């Protein structure tokens, strides 16, 4: 009973989110000063173009159709599962988004995991050894990194590791001029290192600082005092009680950081010419490609929604108070 109810509630929430995101994206695109015809045809082509041709293009890009009509026709197609065609890529939006997402998946996932694990470890170490040299070093790093824009860090990384040292490629996700079948996993990973590192380094700061605060909270709790009074060492306390009680806030942070990773990837992919979802977002935005931009917005919103939903479900599995709480309510109802 309870499960069906909460599933229905989540589904309604999801649909409301999708509707809101798609509408806002349409509004933003139509408010954009960019003339899609001119942006996509190019200055020179526009001048030499005949009036009929220009009118045909304007109709294809729906320049003169009012916003609500455009959104209405998009929505009626969308509920039937058709998200339209990307004008820029000349292909169905679903296909473009799926391709681009596949290209970004490795980058997003590795940055997400690295920033989560590294942030958690640094945060716990700094919190447990509060005031020590390690704590100060971690804090200095975090404050510096959270004040650093991801794209600037990306350019610095490129200058140092790609241009000056020559350890890593300057851009792209695969070697230039090689056919898709010739690209090995090693090649992909090699091209992944710099963008993934850039994306995760900035993510670490946020997670480490939050984890540090939470660690200090947990270690000043009464149950930690009692454990100390029973002769447990700090390390044993962190292992037995600290990690257990840090797990829930850490998961919240980790899943909330999905949105930041996705947002950061837009800039990082641009800097590294990494052909993923982030780069497609910029292309769609600058080209006035409303269907593609909406498709990308929906895909990323769904990703973030799924992350938060998953975290919510995990809480119930991990925290005995929530788990039993549900059971008790049910037994009263029965």
């Amino acid at each position, binding site marked *: 009973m309870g499960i069906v109810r909460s599933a229905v509630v989540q589904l309604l929430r999801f649909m409301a989110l999708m509707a809101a995101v798609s509408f806002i994206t349409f509004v933003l695109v139509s408010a954009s000063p960019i003339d899609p015809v001119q942006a996509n045809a190019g200055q020179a082509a526009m001048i030499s173009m005949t009036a009929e041709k220009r009118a045909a293009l304007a109709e294809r890009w729906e320049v003169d159709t009012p916003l609500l009509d455009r959104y209405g026709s998009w929505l009626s197609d969308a509920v039937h599962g058709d998200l339209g065609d990307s004008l820029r890529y000349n292909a169905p939006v679903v296909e473009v988004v799926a391709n681009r997402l596949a290209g970004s998946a490795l980058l997003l996932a590795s940055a997400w995991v690295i920033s989560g694990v590294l942030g958690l470890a640094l945060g716990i170490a700094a919190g447990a050894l509060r005031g020590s040299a390690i704590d100060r070093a971690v804090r200095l790093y975090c404050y510096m990194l959270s004040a650093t824009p991801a794209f600037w860090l990306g350019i610095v990384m490129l200058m140092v590791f790609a241009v000056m040292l020559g350890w890593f490629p300057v851009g792209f996700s695969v070697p230039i001029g090689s056919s898709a079948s010739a690209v090995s996993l090693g090649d992909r990973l090699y091209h992944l290192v710099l963008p993934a590192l850039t994306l995760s380094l900035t993510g670490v700061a946020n997670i480490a600082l939050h984890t540090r605060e939470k660690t200090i909270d947990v270690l000043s709790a009464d149950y930690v005092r009692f454990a100390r009074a*029973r002769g447990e060492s700090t390390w044993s306390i962190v292992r037995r009680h600290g990690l257990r009680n840090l797990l829930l806030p850490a998961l919240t942070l980790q899943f909330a950081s999905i949105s930041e990773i996705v947002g950061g990837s837009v800039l990082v992919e641009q800097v590294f010419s990494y052909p993923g979802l982030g780069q497609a977002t910029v292309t769609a935005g600058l080209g006035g490609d409303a269907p593609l931009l909406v498709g990308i917005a929906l895909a990323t919103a769904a990703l973030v929604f799924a992350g938060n939903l998953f975290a919510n479900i995990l809480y119930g599995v991990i925290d005995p108070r929530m788990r039993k709480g549900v059971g008790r309510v049910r037994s009263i109802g029965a």
Partner: protein
Amino acid sequence: MTRQGECAGCAPGFGAENAVPHARHRDAEFHHHHSHASTSHHSGDHHLLAIEHLTVSFDMYDSDAPFFAAERRSHEQLHGLSLSVHEGEVLAVVGASGSGKSLLADAIMGLYEPNACVTGTIWFDGELMDAKKLPQLRGRGISFVPQSVEHLDPLMRVGDQIIGACARADRDLRRQRMRAFMEAYGLDASVERMYPYELSGGMARRVLLICALMDEPRLIVADEPTPGLDLDIAVHAVEDLRTFADGGGGVLLITHDIDLALTVADRVAVFHGGTIVEETSASSFASPDTLRHPFSRALWRAMPQHGFAVPDGSADGGCA
């Protein structure tokens, strides 16, 4: 002597009178600031726990001064506190709520805030303690019984917490001991699998006591083990401590509930103004005439059966 933190003016509290603290003395004699109860005895001619001139101060910024001009001041919370616990007895430390009694437990367990400065002398079982030795006694000689279920990890099963951190090899042995204790204290075997939020007040109280007993302590320090408990559960709580003392252990019971304390204590140490103003046999509380200090007499008058008189300022005479 224990010392923690860095602050000016921390001097070791050695005095000539303390150099030989455990010389043989007659039982009724007033010595080491206290007189005995009939059950008090010294094994090996020394106290189980002896504290002399314990002073705890906190180094903090002056809260009255403007923010940027505030200088660090030392706030003394406990001063010159002395008390002794004998084997086989319950010593109740009674005083008003929020008067700093818990700092005494912190000092004995060696749990200080980073800005605390602790001076004084602590002997355990005839051995002089210092800041290194004292923490080694946690769970190995001295066990702590805390106030409430808040002192249990909310996300760990009760059984795992009672067993506590131990070597893998000792785990089964400790599990057996836990089960024996749980049976002795009337806790169902299912409690082992519960989480702290599922415990009733009485169950939590027994679980916390068993946590302490698991380590076979010689001294139990109980810090307000009864607040929020129904009277009959609270009485059980202090009676269990009595039973432990009857088995040869020592109990330092810190409480604001003098009535409850008197039901089990052999001796009572009256805490007032950051120090122990009187340490005397519980039987002295039969009449105000056998109490030496004005605050003790005020406490006596404040007891329900003596008319609930609220202690007034005049009772403060004699202590700083």
